[in-house]
């Protein structure tokens, strides 16, 4: 490792540790490298600008953020929830099951765990607390189930992975389908176990439960919202639309339904929705742009090759390599933001994957799931902060209950590592040659 790169790393972690925004820490670390290595500082803007302009998949990010925001603000989320309660609300631990199942359906439209927590998650959690669940438990299941969002297609983290790895975004999306169902199943089994052990009564007393006479009305009201995942996925896999186009179609459809069917969107609201979506889209965009220049530095310092050689000297089997990589990402997940893991750390492992013949779609889905678990693990678990921030449930209360749900998520991770076919089966049906 050259002195220039060591200095650059020092600047990155030094600035990060004393509270500099991640994007700027990466840009400044790159400037430090270029200065010491005697390279042109104009490269900073060149890499950022060309990086954004040459990767059209990047456009899926603001568009998916927009569609999730429209759904949350336009009450599509509420109608969906009512539908889920109708199906699952009567069971023991019913609302907890609804929380998980609702996340699965919602994840078929949004690609972000934070959108899930802030939208359907928050509504569901308040309902659970009102029915008598402890706030810590309600918050924990909300956080855990939100991780399904970026695993079931569409998925913003998978778009980011595709940007750094060149793996097909369409096949990555498909690869997430079985893992998402596994997560849903494992989480619901955990709830059933907790409910049986604590001898909970069914949630029947809850006034949110739908009576039989209301079933047709609730179904009709939820129907346009339920159609959205069908349009989205049908569009992508029918070969009709690219994932980016599908994101725009989803946002457009959600806008139409919210405006004309539910009549929940006004012009003022629309302005706020567009502003806030653009704002989030810019925050993510700046980090991606910064990652382009930083990754340029990492590559020009020959670091991925170095790590690849190091790993090949260990003589690992692909399975033990996967286990090692997953342990590293889990530990990172406790301390580092998901975007850093996705955009900066993953590229370091890709040459080794290629050298060992590990499929990049399989690697991507597994590591994205791993990083999503990282969103829920203290001390640095962004979902814990977001939910605590918007609901007022103390951070420590959520942390105390989250462990119960991290275990089933880890179990899914292990199953996927051992059985790659669970990830690759669906992509292969659609013609993936991996």
């Amino acid at each position: 490792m050259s002195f220039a790169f060591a200095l650059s790393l020092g600047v990155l972690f030094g600035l990060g540790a004393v509270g500099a925004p991640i994007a700027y820490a990466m840009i400044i670390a790159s400037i430090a490298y270029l200065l010491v290595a005697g390279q042109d500082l104009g490269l900073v803007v060149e890499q950022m600008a060309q990086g954004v302009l040459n990767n059209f998949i990047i456009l899926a990010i603001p568009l998916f953020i927009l569609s999730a925001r429209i759904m949350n603000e336009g009450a599509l989320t509420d109608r969906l929830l009512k539908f889920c309660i109708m199906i699952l609300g009567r069971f023991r631990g019913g609302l907890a099951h609804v929380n998980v199942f609702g996340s699965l359906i919602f994840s078929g439209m949004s690609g972000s765990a934070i959108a899930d927590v802030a939208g359907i998650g928050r509504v569901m959690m308040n309902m659970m607390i009102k029915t008598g669940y402890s706030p810590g438990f309600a918050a924990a299941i909300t956080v855990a189930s939100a991780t399904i969002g970026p695993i079931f297609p569409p998925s913003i983290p998978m778009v980011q992975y595709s940007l750094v790895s060149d793996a097909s975004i369409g096949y990555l999306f498909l690869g997430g389908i079985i893992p998402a169902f596994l997560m849903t199943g494992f989480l619901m089994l955990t709830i059933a176990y907790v409910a049986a052990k604590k001898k909970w009564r069914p949630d029947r007393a809850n006034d949110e439960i739908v009576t039989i006479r209301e079933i047709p009305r609730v179904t009709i009201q939820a129907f346009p919202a339920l159609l959205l995942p069908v349009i989205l996925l049908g569009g992508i896999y029918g070969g009709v639309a690219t994932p980016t186009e599908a994101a725009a179609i989803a946002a457009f459809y959600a806008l139409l339904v919210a405006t004309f069917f539910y009549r929940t969107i006004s012009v003022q609201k629309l302005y706020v929705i567009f502003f806030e979506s653009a704002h989030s889209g810019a925050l993510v965009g700046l980090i991606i742009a910064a990652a382009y220049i930083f990754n340029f530095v990492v590559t020009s310092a020959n670091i991925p090759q170095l790590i690849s050689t190091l790993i090949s000297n260990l003589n690992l089997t692909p399975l033990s390599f996967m286990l090692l990589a997953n342990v590293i990402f889990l530990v990172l997940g406790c301390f580092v933001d998901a975007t850093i893991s996705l955009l900066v750390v993953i590229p370091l492992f890709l040459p080794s994957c290629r050298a060992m013949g590990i499929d990049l779609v399989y690697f991507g889905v597994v590591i994205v799931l791993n990083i999503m678990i990282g969103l829920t693990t203290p001390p640095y678990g962004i979902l814990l902060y977001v939910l605590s921030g918007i609901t007022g449930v103390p951070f420590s209360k959520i942390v105390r209950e989250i462990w119960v749900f991290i275990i089933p998520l880890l179990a899914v991770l292990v199953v996927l590592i051992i059985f790659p076919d669970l990830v690759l089966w669906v992509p292969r049906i659609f013609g993936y040659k991996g």
Partner: protein
Amino acid sequence: MSQPKGETFMKVLRWLHDRAKDVGVVLLMAIFFTFVLQVFMRYVVGHPLGWTLEMSLMVYLWLVFWFSGFLVKDKEQIYFDMLYVAVKPKTRQIFDIITGTIIVIALALSYPATVDYVTFMKIEKTGATQIRLDYVFSIFLIFLPFVVIRGGIRIFHLLFGDSGGPDKREETNP
């Protein structure tokens, strides 16, 4: 962004800020409706347009750096906060001064090379839309000075004034 004495100055600033917000909203709407148009022309009319994707990407580039330059507050950025939230407010203020100064100096240092690169790009045009790349990249010539100026004002506040001025970070993240 400085602390204005006059009411009118404050009003002008607020008006400018609101217009910057309007531009931000228009940028995302442009991406959104360009895409809707693209989908409509390709699948309904059967006459795909060549310029839509390129146009949306350019607008997104502008959106990212327009927001980052004018509208995103420091506290809204994504940052590591483990050590930062653990220390006393006084230490935090020192941290802010250090990071702020380093960011301002480094970005200012990169500015001449950036101007060189952007003006040099006048020789190239985008593929489908035939827009000169120096125009497309000119957003960086606006973005960089603004981040430097805002950073400078913030450092000034931290050193001599209240605890952070208009970009003061909130205690909790996010």
